[in-house]
């Protein structure tokens, strides 16, 4: 049943409460990332956001992906970002920030996108989906799908990762001569 329907009917399960809490915290964290002037605070906001989303994945019975999310996103990506922030010793941005016009425009566009995407979501009453399959979200099921149906994308991604590694090393390597 749709969001509105869920609230109205009052059949609020623990799931619902958990989802709402996690959602609110995630949004708040996202706002911190975007609005806060100090990059480190932003990074911590990002971590919080990722952990909340991992929580939501658990709610969606996607345990494997939740673990992945925490290990890779929260554990590696944000650490890397924080690492670079501290390496470059970045100071918080100057007060000024970009002019009002782009900010306003961006906000406007954002709202427009939400309006465009949101409306059908609210109206669309999806059919009630039953409980997930017993092995849903487990490593076995995802692993099996990954290596059979999505095998070639998997190879492509591995190539992409390889090239990213080489690229990153070359770009960041201090020139030998200087």
């Amino acid at each position: 049943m749709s969001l509105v329907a869920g609230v109205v009917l009052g059949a609020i399960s623990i799931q619902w409460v958990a989802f709402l809490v996690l959602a609110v915290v995630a949004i708040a964290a996202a706002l911190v990332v975007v609005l806060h002037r100090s990059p480190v605070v932003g990074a911590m906001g990002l971590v919080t956001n990722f952990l909340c989303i991992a929580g939501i994945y658990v709610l969606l019975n996607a345990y494997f992906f939740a673990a992945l999310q925490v290990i890779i996103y929260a554990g590696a990506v944000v650490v890397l970002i924080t690492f670079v922030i501290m390496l470059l010793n970045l100071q918080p941005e100057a007060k000024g920030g970009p002019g009002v016009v782009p900010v306003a425009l961006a906000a406007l566009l954002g709202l427009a996108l939400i309006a465009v995407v949101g409306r059908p979501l609210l109206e669309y009453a999806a059919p009630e989906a039953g409980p997930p399959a017993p092995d849903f979200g487990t490593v076995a099921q995802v692993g099996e799908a990954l290596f059979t149906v999505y095998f070639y994308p998997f190879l492509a991604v591995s190539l992409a990762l390889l090239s990213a590694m080489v690229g990153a090393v070359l770009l960041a390597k201090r020139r030998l001569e200087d």
Partner: protein
Amino acid sequence: MVGDPGPYLLLAAVLFVIGAFGVISRRGAITILMSIELMLNSANLALIAVSRFLPGDGGAGVPDGQVIGFLVLAIAAAEVAVGLAIVIAMFRLRESVDVDLARLLRW
């Protein structure tokens, strides 16, 4: 049990928009990178939310969403790596990560 992807998709949309707003309005390269991560993450959320409620064999849910999510994850990680390398290189040139300083590529 929230029976349909509605609320999750809405959350994903909101997160996406916040990420986009961050990319557009902020001048710090790192912040922009983080906002991009946000957007990618919201995409993942949407993917998995939808795949969870699709009719699969032996109950609701198909693994495809998570597999694609996994691939997006990998790509996002690669993207951050290269992005940070670029930021470092830029920092070395400009002493700052302000994106507006890198505007040589214009008429």
